[in-house]
């Protein structure tokens, strides 16, 4: 009865061993409380995530569209008439028969990797600069965090104005005699614009996280390194980077997930003007559902299931890779 709050007791294995009966009772007590506290969350997740996921998987195995799903119009109730098609949708998508999936996968990967790499390096660089004694540091920090602080549905409209054909970006480029591409409609420049804008949105998160990580590294380590004659680069390489590893691991994982699923930037930046090529998997699946008539429920759901599986596989591999490299460092 005494250990409902004592999580470490089991692992540490201190104290006298009790009989099996009292251990069972004690474990029941502990788990009873824990489960009681966890139940509401599990219930909400079950209701809003698990059940819809189950239904989504089911829908992806049918040929449901907005035309054959049961609905009620006024007084008339229309019965569902869609039917089970098994793995047909997945076959169509994965075999490339719809000519949409693989190009979008390619672009999504390019998008995710370049956005995460750019935001991380930019964030790291700025965190290094701002971590020094700089006059006006607070002001810089406030300004640099702005892209994160203002909701994306506001800033994306601003970017749309700035990147339009006669917008301020092209005016500036024209003033210094650089080419002025149409950022919002040319297939190639659209992608450049998307990555650029998303980097703008994402770097403050990286900067603030890495800054927090840097400030947690004890100053003694730097002093010791200086005493040993380490150059600034060596101090960065052998003190700062290893010290940032735990933070980096987390933010990179989160950032990959968020970028992969980045809906707001692509959807709001390009709206209806975006060509099909700039849509990442998430926005493409959304358009299947919302952006066309009849709405294609089945394929949209199938895309969603595929996206989710890709992310889960990635997270699993990443976790395992992290564990292994941690063991290597520790060993």
């Amino acid at each position, binding site marked *: 009865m005494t250990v409902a709050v004592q999580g470490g007791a089991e692992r540490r294995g201190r104290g006298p061993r009790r009989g099996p009966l009292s251990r069972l009772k004690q474990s029941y007590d502990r788990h009873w409380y824990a489960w009681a506290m966890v139940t509401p969350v599990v219930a909400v997740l079950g209701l809003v995530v698990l059940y819809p996921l189950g239904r989504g998987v089911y829908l992806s195995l049918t040929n449901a569209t907005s035309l054959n799903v049961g609905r009620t119009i006024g007084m008339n109730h229309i019965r569902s008439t869609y039917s089970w098609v098994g793995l047909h949708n997945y076959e169509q998508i994965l075999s490339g028969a719809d000519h949409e999936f693989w190009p979008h996968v390619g672009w999504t990967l390019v998008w995710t990797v370049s956005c995460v790499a750019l935001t991380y390096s930019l964030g790291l660089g700025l965190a290094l600069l701002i971590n020094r004694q700089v006059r006006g540091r607070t002001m810089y920090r406030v300004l640099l965090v702005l892209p994160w602080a203002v909701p994306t549905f506001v800033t994306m*409209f601003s970017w749309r104005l700035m990147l339009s054909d006669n917008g301020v970006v092209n005016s500036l480029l024209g003033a210094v005699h650089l080419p002025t591409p149409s950022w919002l409609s040319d297939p190639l420049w659209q992608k450049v614009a998307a990555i650029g804008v998303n980097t703008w949105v994402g770097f403050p998160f990286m900067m603030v996280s890495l800054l927090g990580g840097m400030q947690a590294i004890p100053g003694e380590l730097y002093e010791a390194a200086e005493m040993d004659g380490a150059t600034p680069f060596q101090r960065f390489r052998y003190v700062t980077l290893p010290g940032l590893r735990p933070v980096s691991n987390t933010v990179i994982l989160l950032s990959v997930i968020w970028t992969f699923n980045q809906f707001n930037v692509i959807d709001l930046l390009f709206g209806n003007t975006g060509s099909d090529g700039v849509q990442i998997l998430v926005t493409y699946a959304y358009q299947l559902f919302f952006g066309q008539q009849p709405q294609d429920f089945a394929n949209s759901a199938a895309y969603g299931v595929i996206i989710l599986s890709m992310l889960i596989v990635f997270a699993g591999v990443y976790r395992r890779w992290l564990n292994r490299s941690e063991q290597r460092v520790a060993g």
Partner: protein
Amino acid sequence: MSSVADRVTVDPAAPDQSAAARTGRVRRRGERSRAASLLLHGTLALTAIVAAFPILWIGYISLGPGTDDFLHPDRIAGRASLSNYSYVLLHTDFFTWFANSVIVGAGTMFFGVLLAASAGYAVSRMRFPGHRQLMWSFLVTQMFPVSVLLVPLYNIMSQLDLLDSYQGLIIIYCSTAVPFCAFMMKGYFDTIPMEIDEAGRIDGLSPFGVFWRLIVPLARPGLAVAAFYSFLTAWGEVAYASVFMLSSDKYTLSVGIQTFVSQYNQQWNLMAAMAVLVAIPAALVFYLVQKHLVTGLTAGGTKG
């Protein structure tokens, strides 16, 4: 640049003053040369301008009174006025949408924090069977793309008659906010010493009592961050809100703002004014908590 900035002259044999006299000028630890300083400030200033410019720009556009002023930004400076703001405030549904956003945000915040705190505490303190799987599923729910849940949720909500209602949207937002907040709260609870729990137990509190009377008051900063995070999630969300809120008196700000710029009308000036009005409270709230937000976030991650 950093090589110049951080150079330290250490001459343990000589006292400081004579060393300084010999070499002329010696930079103390942390001091840097003029050029390095210039470069540092230059880089920071440039990035700060790039970071702030789009936001300032939309503020500037919002001052132009005519509907096509956004095409000729150079004209605005001469005829700047606040007429867009008064129009948005007086002649549109701004306050209805604002109230909707606040209701949905507050609802998400309340339920989100309540659920996340209890779950985070359980995962942080108790090693019950299934706690690893629970943490894992918190992470996995972060990965759910909008589209996998959108279709089934749409069907479910229409069956439950929750389309176009606050409750429906709040439940949905909770599903994204709660796992993340629970993740964050777990990290925060981990920083509170276990001895406090033990002391409470010895003094005769039940585990729930310990949680409610000791831990929750101590974790107030963490709770505040979770509250603001879930509020901001709801405040800025676009995809679900535009699918589930059908009638214009139920729109949240993020949906309402899009009505100014559609196929049928292009009122960028009004849109800009409203964007500024929406951004100010969100940014203020954000600045109050962003420092804690990151500590909570990374603490949860590193010890997970």
